[in-house]
């Protein structure tokens, strides 16, 4: 009851400012909107580790000397980077998912949910961005350093493990953090296949209530908050790993 009063007080206050948050007092719309925040957070929490792990694997494949490893990954990276995530997602959900359904004998046996497809498509898309950043970092490691390591008797794997990856990771860190931020924002494409994240919930509300600006303010603040946390953690790692002698 207390909660109810707070809600109506908030609606009242906002209405004085000319903002229409009346939907908060309804059942269905307020419910999907509140759940939307949780779904977005959950989506982000699942997709970030997926993108980092796959990104590292992709980068390893891309810089390996084996064409059978690098060629398919290169093909995938090009495809995912050069087409809109929105279209990839629609295509995966509407076409690939139907193919999977037919293979397992009907939609009722298909374990893949829209949520899965968002994690897969966004995760792999951002993994491709990570992989390119790490690859760029590996190639930017000064050759003198690799030569020195070889001179000290390091094997190619050891050079990779102890010299190239640590340095590449540091120099590509800003790009990786940018990738993660775009990941957070990309989760909004989930709205296209009815994953009930916050943008979907907002669209469902604002198409009925016509209060786009009100919901936009909340959206902007919410994503700023998540990405503020991501950027903070990123710059904390950056500082922890900084090597004296580089940078200003």
């Amino acid at each position, binding site marked *: 009851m207390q909660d109810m009063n707070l809600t109506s007080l908030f609606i009242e206050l906002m209405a004085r400012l000319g903002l229409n948050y009346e939907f908060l007092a309804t059942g269905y719309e307020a419910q999907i909107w509140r759940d939307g925040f949780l779904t977005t957070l959950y989506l982000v929490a699942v997709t970030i580790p997926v993108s980092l792990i796959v990104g590292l694997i992709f980068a390893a494949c891309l810089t*390996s000397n084996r064409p059978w490893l690098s060629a398919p990954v290169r093909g995938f990276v*090009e495809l995912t980077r050069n087409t809109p995530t929105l279209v990839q997602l629609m295509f995966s959900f509407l*076409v690939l998912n139907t193919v999977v359904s037919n293979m397992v004998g009907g939609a009722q046996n298909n374990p893949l949910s829209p949520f899965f497809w968002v994690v897969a498509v966004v995760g792999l898309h951002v993994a491709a961005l990570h992989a390119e950043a790490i690859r760029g970092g590996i190639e930017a490691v000064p050759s003198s350093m690799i030569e020195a390591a070889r001179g000290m008797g390091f094997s190619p794997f050891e050079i990779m493990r102890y010299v190239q990856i640590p340095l590449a990771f540091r120099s590509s860190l800003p790009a990786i953090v940018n990738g993660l931020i775009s990941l957070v924002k990309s989760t909004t494409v989930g709205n296209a296949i009815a994953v009930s994240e916050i943008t979907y919930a907002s669209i469902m509300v604002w198409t009925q209530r016509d209060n786009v600006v009100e919901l936009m303010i909340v959206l902007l603040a919410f994503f700023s908050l998540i990405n503020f946390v991501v950027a903070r953690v990123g710059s904390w790692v950056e500082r922890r790993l900084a090597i004296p002698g580089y940078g200003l």
Partner: protein
Amino acid sequence: MSMTATQASKTTSKSSRVLRSIGFVAMPLLVIGWSLIDLSLGRELVEWIPYLASGFSMNILITICAVTLGTTAGVLLGLMQLAPYWFVRLPAQVYVQIFRNAPALVLIFATTYIFPFEVVLFGNYLPFPDWVKAVIGLAILSSAYIAEITRGAVLSIPTTQWEATKGLGFSRLQALRYVILPQCVRRSLPPWMNVASSMAMGTSLASLVGVHELMHAATDASTAVRRLDFTIIAYVVVMAAFFTLCYPIARLTRRLERRFNTG
């Protein structure tokens, strides 16, 4: 570049050269192949091609404007973030923090509804079309990204270089202009490319605010044709169009990147 690395990149580039060249035509070929297998679908598609093409030219226009605007603003903002004076640094930092965190979708919605649909200039009503608003929305986002990239690139230059320029009697700005920035260009090319292509693909979001671009055109087409396989092929066409636009850019940039690396 070490010996093994050079060799490695040589073998990889040889073996995947075929793959890369296929990349240019793979998606359009898929569309053509499908249209030939199902001729009635192909005929339907051919009828819609001019409409889809008019949509796609809008994507290209928005991309070019947004990236140009965003890069100019972004480089300036990135350098402002490194300025020795707080009153220059702080506004740039705040701007970058706010806008690089905003989803493109939200920014496009915001610019569409904030700016009027026409502006009064010397008593004349000039239309302020929606695609320009989409350009501004995407430019805001890309400038925040590019600011971060610029900052990261400058910071990745060893401190000794700054000290060396000081020793040579360069001012801070001169050092930036003649020593630091040229090196930064190389380091920031791959991430800049990421931004440029993600802006190109972000233009598809403009469909949601009613800009007549490819995605919008494809939805119009699927709505009018009312065939399920047409809806699917329309998506493949959209993908093919974006791929054909972004892939050559990606290739070109990688070529430049390689040239910078060996040079």
